[in-house]
């Protein structure tokens, strides 16, 4: 499994749980879950590129 797939799996599971426990209606839960998932993806990819340019 690639690192990207691991990140997608992690973001999807955490997004689903956060959406369900944080909001009341199904529509709000779906929207919030997708928002959390999207934030994981965007922040993860940005951090990956920042680390790529650092001489570690």
């Amino acid at each position, binding site marked *: *499994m690639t690192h990207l797939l*691991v990140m997608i*799996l*992690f973001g999807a*599971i*955490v997004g*689903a*749980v*956060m959406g*369900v*426990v944080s909001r*009341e209606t199904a529509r709000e839960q779906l929207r919030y879950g997708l928002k959390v998932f999207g934030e994981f993806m965007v922040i993860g990819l940005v951090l990956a590129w920042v680390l790529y340019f650092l001489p570690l």
Partner: protein
Amino acid sequence: LANREKREGKPGEREMAPANAWLYGALAWLMPGTGHIFQGRWGRGLLLGGAVWAMFITGLLFGGHLFGFTSTDAGTNPLLQAAPAIANLGTGGLYLFCSLLGLNFAELPEQMRRATFEYGNTFLWVAGLLNYLSMLDAFDIAAGRKS
């Protein structure tokens, strides 16, 4: 002020959670998802429980290991073990089952060589942390604080 007191109760007065809320919270910890399922919240229970189970099993498949509160490894500080152990403990029955059988507590060299070893540990920690959220959700629903 009168309206506020009516809505929130008098200052210093706290509404006690019913006993069954504690029971559902404990059930949710012991077996992820059951705290909701026993309240008739099948969809919510299956989703939350399934997420915790999926995270836990994936963590084990990635080669992660569980942390105990004590360690026999030389040079290991018990304080450093506490945070990951508390996170792992959130998986409740899954953690106790592995603990009783002594499964996946050792840091084996062949597991540590795997590229997904640290991912596995993270998945196992987050499985426990998500189950803590699930427990609180089951408790709040039973206490009438959430619909």
